[in-house]
């Protein structure tokens, strides 16, 4: 910690700061849409009250450097690594930073044995933290971190089309499936939410891609105009459902919807939906050669 001149120590400092920042500081694109949602609600309503508390919470978490939400969630790590980068050393450094962040209280003890119920106490165990590495042509390392709480993860859904009530293997069926997930989620995923959606893939890659959609900026434009139109339609219709913040009723049910697609086998047609709560904790950094933070990505 004291000697930041050596790459390993500098990397450790950078990773701890990435975790702290992700847990305590909501990214600017999310803050902007939450504030817009608050302005859209009727003064004096439960919805306006809820979003007022949410905005105050965002300010307070940043000021106190404490977690936005007590459920610091699944630790999802997405990297872009240059050729020859030592993945094993990176994961070792990241796990050390996770343990330290847990001790400080940036992260809750969130890794539980699925059979015995024993909490590992340090956020480390089979499947946690969860790494997704990609080799790229860049000459530096990029790390994106997402902390996804259990409440919103529980209201994610995967549909297999055709579906008797929702429709066939076309964009209408897809749209109806997504809105069905929004209806079933109500306020349980801490809405207003942001959806990551994947059309196609298999059961594992579909959910995987749906989460990767959440790495996009909320206000970006989909490179596929057909999917871009669908994103807008979903947000518009969801916000006319009246579910509102926390499911209290109101105008803001979704802050965004990000849709991608993967090729499927002829027999399968999945629509995979990951629901992200308003406490959309994702940050990212680019590293310099010494392991220091050269740039924040959100």
């Amino acid at each position, binding site marked *: 910690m004291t000697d930041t001149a050596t790459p390993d120590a500098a990397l450790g400092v950078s990773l701890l700061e990435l975790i702290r920042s992700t847990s305590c500081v909501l990214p600017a694109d999310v803050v902007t849409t939450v504030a817009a949602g608050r302005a859209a609600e009727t003064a*004096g309503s*439960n919805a306006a*009250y*809820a979003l007022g*508390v*949410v905005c*105050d*919470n965002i300010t*307070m*978490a940043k000021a*106190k450097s*404490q*977690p*936005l*939400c*007590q*459920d*610091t969630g699944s630790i999802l790590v997405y990297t872009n690594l240059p050729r020859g980068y030592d993945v094993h050393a990176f994961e070792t450094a990241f796990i050390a930073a996770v343990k330290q962040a847990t*001790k*400080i*209280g940036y*992260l*809750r*003890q*969130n890794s539980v044995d699925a059979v015995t*119920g*024993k*909490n590992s*106490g340090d956020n480390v165990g089979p499947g946690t933290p969860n790494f997704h590495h990609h080799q790229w042509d860049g000459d530096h390392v990029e790390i994106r971190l997402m902390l996804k*709480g*259990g*409440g919103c993860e*529980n209201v994610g859904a995967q549909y297999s089309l055709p579906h008797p009530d929702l*429709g066939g293997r076309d*964009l*209408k*069926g897809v*749209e*109806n499936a997504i*809105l069905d997930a*929004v*209806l079933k989620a*109500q*306020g*349980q995923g*801490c809405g207003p939410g942001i959806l990551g959606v994947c059309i196609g893939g298999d059961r594992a890659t579909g959910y995987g891609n749906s989460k990767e959609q959440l790495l996009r900026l909320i206000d970006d434009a989909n490179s596929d105009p057909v999917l871009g139109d669908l994103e807008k*339609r979903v947000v518009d*219709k969801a916000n*006319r*459902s*009246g*579910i*509102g913040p*926390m*499911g*209290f*009723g109101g105008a803001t049910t979704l802050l965004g919807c990000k849709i991608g697609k993967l090729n499927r086998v002829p027999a399968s047609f999945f629509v995979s939906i990951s629901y992200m*709560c*308003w*406490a959309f904790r994702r940050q990212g950094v680019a590293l310099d050669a010494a392991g220091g933070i050269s740039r924040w990505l959100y």
Partner: protein
Amino acid sequence: MPIIPLTTPLTEDAVRALKVGDTVELTGRVYTGRDAAHHRMHEGTPPPVDLHGAVIYHCGPVMVQENGRWVCKAAGPTTSSREEPYQWEVMRDHGIRGVIGKGGMGPKTLDGCKKYGCVYLHAIGGAAQICAERITRVDGVDWMDLGSPEAVWHLWVVKFPVIVTMDSHGGSLHQQVYADSAKALATLKA
């Protein structure tokens, strides 16, 4: 919105006076209890504290020990629907008068609220700092073997902000919003 101040332990009269939509600020003792604690009580283990008149908070806080004392770093509500199989039993068997959580609960709990005189109080999900600021003391903890997030923490809260979304008269904001939104989305179907 006028704010109704309430102090724990709650009396049945105070609970019966509450209606869906009321804004409440709660002061006094609150116990956390979530999935594992409810499951353990359901399996027959008596609660580690007297719950008569008590308020249970569906919450797995971030707790750290500083100078030998527990300090609450973050403590918003967790999703309550997972306790739907168990909550009515805790009302019947242990006399709780209030449940704090988020997302609302189902018909068994609503029926339990009516029958045994209990109320569901909705905190703002994700607002862990606003909630933690109103937790002025951590006075103890039981069932730590369940792990810190699942343990029963003894919190002291001052003016803890909640909204009544399920009352003891059969009223549920969650039922209402679900029905209305299902109808609205049916008309918007592609």
